[in-house]
Structures are given as structure tokens and as C-alpha cells.
């Protein structure tokens, strides 16, 4: 049976009296690989922020595993991980310390403190960093000293260490070269198998490039804060895309 993990009902979000999301209904089921398409300003980032609980909707309800989002405890909320468009890494920390931050949801305060003092265990962080094709030489480097692509992979490694059930990613392929884009997409869609690594099997990724749709099984198109189409990848036609671009 396919479980509904996340559910949005009649969700609206207003920013400065202007709707950025307008009565959106959405169900995300376990195992789905969803591509979220739309022009800049279509409401993709707002939708992701509502899905991960960063923004509270003005109207409607958000449910995770059939529970209202506001009533969830921290461990339930940590089932969702996010890769932000602007990465949002802590610039003053090293790459491995940033990746270890992904474990905060499962660890005690002492772990957080030891991580900041650089005396915690980095085994798990290193496993995920290697999985994201990051070289050992950059593990202890400060984030400020890394290239754009390296930072992107650190952000991915951080979200993967959360070992969440759902991964939300907001335009994670921006400013990356084609080879790196393909590598990162494969990581996020879990096409590379590894027993030690748990990659969320449910993924929602917002995209601009249509050539990256391979590997997704569901496509959602957005325009002006509304979902214009929501269909299986095989049913996607050119006129659907014309509606949103």
C-alpha cells in the first residue's frame, strides 16, 4: 500500500497582501520522485517552505503522516530534510562540522557542543561526504574556502545525514556544470546504491531545466502560486509546459 507522507489541503500563503500560494492541494506518497516546475516567482520556494514547516500557511492545513504539522514533535518533524537554493550553510564552520549539523535531530546537546569544539566523531559525516564525491582533503576546510560545487555537495551531505524519509530540494542544480549536475541528480534520486547510506526514497525537487526530468516519476507545474498540472512523467506533453513557461 502506498502511504501518504505529506498532504496539503487548500493551502494559501499571503506575503504583503499578495498571494504567493493560492488554495494549493497536494499529496506526496512514499517512493515518489517529484519534479516541481515553474518560472521564477511561481511559488516553488514558498511551497517547499510550507512543506518543511518553515512557513505557516495563512489558510488550509499541512499534514505529515496524517498529523497536523503544528502538533508534531521534533523527531517527527525531522523526517523531512531540505536542500535550500542558497544552501544556508554556516560559513564559519568547517565542511565536516556543517555536515554533522544534519545529525542534530538525533543527537544530544553534548554532541552539538562537541561538534562546535571540533571534538565529536565525524565518521558518519565522512561517510556521507564520500558518498557525495567530496574529497578527504576538503573535509576539515572552512566553508568559505570551498568552490560553489563543493558547497552544494556539503549541503546535500548535510541533508542526507538527517536520514529523513522525504527530501525537499530547491533548485539544487543552479550554477553547476553538466557533469556535476548529473552526479548530484543521481545522488538525490538514489540511483546509486550503497548499504551504509540511507537516501530518502521520497524526493521533491524544484527545477528550471527540462533536460533533467529523467528519473522523476511525477511532474508538478506551477504558475502564479497555483498548481496548473500534476501528472505522471509519462503523461507530460509539450502543451503542459507551454502553460507554465
Amino acid at each position, binding site marked *: 500500500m502506498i502511504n501518504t507522507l505529506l498532504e496539503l489541503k487548500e493551502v494559501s500563503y499571503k506575503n504583503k497582501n499578495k498571494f504567493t500560494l493560492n488554495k494549493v492541494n497536494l499529496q506526496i506518497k512514499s517512493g515518489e520522485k517529484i519534479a516541481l516546475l515553474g518560472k521564477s516567482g511561481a511559488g516553488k520556494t514558498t511551497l517547499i517552505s510550507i512543506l*518543511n514547516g518553515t512557513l505557516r500557511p495563512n489558510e488550509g492545513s499541512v499534514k505529515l503522516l496524517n498529523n497536523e504539522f503544528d502538533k508534531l514533535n521534533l523527531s517527527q518533524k525531522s523526517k523531512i530534510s531540505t536542500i535550500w537554493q542558497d544552501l544556508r*550553510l554556516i560559513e*564559519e564552520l568547517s565542511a565536516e562540522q556543517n555536515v554533522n549539523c544534519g545529525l542534530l535531530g538525533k543527537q544530544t546537546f553534548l554532541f552539538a557542543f562537541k561538534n562546535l569544539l571540533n571534538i565529536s566523531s565525524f565518521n558518519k559525516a565522512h561517510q556521507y561526504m564520500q558518498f557525495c564525491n567530496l574529497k578527504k582533503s576538503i573535509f576539515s576546510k572552512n566553508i568559505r574556502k570551498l568552490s560553489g560545487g563543493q558547497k552544494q555537495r556539503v549541503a546535500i551531505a548535510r541533508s542526507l545525514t538527517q536520514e529523513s524519509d522525504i527530501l525537499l530540494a530547491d533548485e539544487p542544480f543552479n550554477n553547476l556544470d553538466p557533469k556535476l549536475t548529473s552526479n548530484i541528480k543521481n545522488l538525490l534520486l538514489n540511483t546509486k546504491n550503497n548499504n551504509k547510506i540511507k537516501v530518502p526514497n521520497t524526493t521533491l525537487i524544484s527545477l528550471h531545466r527540462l533536460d533533467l526530468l529523467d528519473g522523476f516519476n511525477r511532474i508538478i507545474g506551477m504558475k502564479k502560486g497555483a498548481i496548473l498540472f500534476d501528472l505522471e512523467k509519462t503523461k507530460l506533453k509539450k502543451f503542459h509546459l507551454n502553460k507554465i513557461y
Partner: protein
Amino acid sequence: MNKLKLNPSSITFLPVLVCIPLAYELFINFHIGGIELFKEFIISSLNPKINNEIIFTLLKRLNETILIAFYSWLISIIFGIIFGILSSEIFYKILNLPIFLKRFLNLFLTFIRSIHEIIWGLILMQIYGINFSIGIIAICIPYVAINAKVFSEQIENINLKTIESIKQINGIKSSTLITLVWSPVIETFKNFGLYRLECAIRSTTVLGLFGVGGIGTSIFLSFQTLNFRELWTYLWSLAFLIIISNVLLKKINLLNTSKKFLTSFVIALFCISLFSLSFFVYFIFNKNAIPFNSINNLLISNFNFISYDFLKLLFETIILGLLSTGIAISFPPIFILILNNKIGITIIRLIAFLFRLIPAPILILVLLMFNDPSISLAAIALGLHNAAITSKLLLANLYNQDKTQYTAMKSLGVANRSSWLFGLFIKQANSYLAYCAYRSDIIIRETAILGVIGSVGLGWQLQESLSSFAWEEVIVILFSYSSIAIIGELINGKIKSNLT
């Protein structure tokens, strides 16, 4: 006719106009009674006294100074960080606590910050008598609040998006909080916290002048007995101590130390904070504080404002603060502009170092050798001491910046001073004025010390009221000081936000 337009560069020079009333008052109060003493004071600076007895006293006094300064610095940093976190918005956002608690805490911190450590020292000495702990507690009270303000401002600068991303990991709240505030706290500690040790050494010295102990007490005793050679031995050793402490602290790099050392360091900090807190509670509740019982008198107070020209003293204090600020802002750029060559700059650096080294109360006592006590004299002493501090920052910023505009102007044949003004100074004027706005907060607080020594303003009245245990007067004076400092801080805050 064109309208006069003010810009940050011209605003920096304008306060020099305070020199007109200052020069007039200094001229009519001038006397030559202490010129010989002044000459002896200057000559003694090159011939300090060195013998076994002096060295023994010096080591003992330096030891006291280091202990008071280091311990008060350490405690004020630890509690400054704690209160800095507690008074930042992020703390209440992450822990979902009502924001009115933050406002209440900020109000409390603003009040204790607005009163100078010397005033706290004088009050505590009057209540508990002369005691080694007085120095530490007196410095810690305002320093904790000052440090808390700086740490909290830096914590507030954390990018909102970073907060969201870490919150979204949904770790326990304390882990989320420490992960977010750690970097700004460490950065602020490195950039600001280490410099506070020098401030603590200076404050310990000034408190020593009032009898708390340490090298300040020896400096004051030497001055009172007109033993200037001995005085300079203490002043030069103080300079040596400040230089050594700066050099040592710059060598500390928390991130490159071994894990074992770091863990021990954190455990030691934790133990010190626990010990300090328990000692503070013990000190407050377990010491004999009989004089303070007269606080009950407040309820049946017959306090009369007019009886000692309270408003006149208040006005004098404000004028003293404004005149000193005028000197502190305008003197450094004017002198750098006039003496704009290598030798001139070296002379300015040397004089500024001396004015920073000599505590303002000693400076005013030196000036009293050839002038009667007046607001102007107190303003000169306070202004010069602070101008020495602002000049240090201005010189560092002027000559560490990009000089392409300056060299381009020089290559066009523009005169040296004009090139300096339009090529170097103009780029620093904004940040210099913003720093001076912050400095004027400190000047307002420091008027208290000068008042005590130079018989002007509320400081003088405070000394009198404390000596006669007139607690109702003390309370009114404290609130007056606090009000002036808070109003000044609000005005300066507006100025700073317009400049940056």
C-alpha cells in the same frame, strides 16, 4: 549664495569649535604656581626610580592588578556571553519564549551598563569597605552588561535563512541554539573580547586610584607625595603590562589548539563561572552591610534638589560630556592633517600612547598644577584621554586601507594634505564618526570619575553624598547618571544607524 552642506568629513572637524570656550576658561584660570612641578613631572618620565624596594612594591601591585583585571575580564566575558544570548531575539525565537522577557532583561542591562565601574566601586566600598573583591565586582557589573550588548548585537546579525535551515533539522532546541550562536560568539570574543582585557587593566588602575588596590593605588600615592620618579616607574610598568597582555592574547588561536586543551579550557570556564556566581551570591548576602540599612531612610526622605544646586550639577555633567566628546572627535584628524608626515605621525602615536597610558584622573591632577579646577580642565583631561583612543583606531584604519585614490591624487600633483583629506580620510570619515558616537557613550559614563577628582558635575556630589551615607541623594544621582547615559546612548544609536 550656496548653502552650507555638511558631510561626515566636515562634521568630524567642526567639534574643534569647543576649543574657543575651553581656551577662554583655561586662560582666565591659568596660574604658574605648579610650573616647576610640571617640569619635574615631565623630566621624571625619562628617569624613573628603580631600587629593590620599588621593584618589590611594583611586583606586588602588578600582581594585584593582574589578578583583579584578569579575573574580572574572564567573569565579565563568560557572563557577557550568557546575557548576550539571553538578550538576543534568536534565543526567544528558538525556545518559543515571550519576547517581553527580553525587553525586561535589556532594560536591566541598560541600567547597570549606564553607571561607570568607578561609581559601582565607590558604592560597594562604602557598603562593604575596602576589599579585594570590590574591584572585581565593580568592574564586572558594567562590563557584563557592555559585553552582553556587543555579543547580542553580533548574534542578532545571524542570517535569518541560516536560522531557518538549522531549525528545520529539528534538533533539540539547546543544540539548535548553540550551533547558531557559536560562530558569532567566538568571532566577537576574538575581535572584541580579547581587547576588553586591556580595558579591564585600565579600569583596575583607575579603581586603584580610589583605594581598591593594585598599581593604581601606588600611582595615586606617588602623585600625592609628589614622588614623580616613582610614579613613572609605575606608569611605564603599566604600559609594559598592557603591551605584553596584547601580544599574548593575539597569540591565542582557539581553533588551532589541541582537543585535550580545548576540553580542559571549556571545563575550566564552566567551573569559574559556577564559582563566581556562588561567590557573588555569598558576597552580597553574607557580608556586613550595616551602612546600607539606611536605605530605609529613602521612605522618609527629606531630599531637596535645590539645596545643592542639583540641576546646575546635572547641566555641568552634560556640558562636560559634550566638550570632551568634541575634543575626542576633532583632535585626532586635525593633528594627523597638520603633522602629515612620517615623523609627525610617529610623534602623534607616541603622545596618544602616553595619554592612553596616564589615567584621566591623574591627567587632571597634572593639569591642576597650572590651572584652577573648572569644567574646561576636566573636559581637556577626559577629551585628551579619549582622543588618544580614537586616534589609535583612526590611524590604524587610515593606513591599512586601499590607497589607490590617494596615490592617484598625489600623482596629479595635489598637495600632501589635500591628498590625505580627499584620498584617505574621506573614505574613513563615516566609520570614524560611527565609532566616535559609540565612544561618546563611554565619555558620558566617564564624566563621573572626572567629576570626583575635578570638583565638577554630579561626580563631585556623588563623592560627597557617599561620604556622608546620604543614600537618598546617592540614588537620585545614580538615576540621573543613568538617565543621561541612556538618553546619550539612544541619540548615539540613531547617529550610528544613520552613518552605517
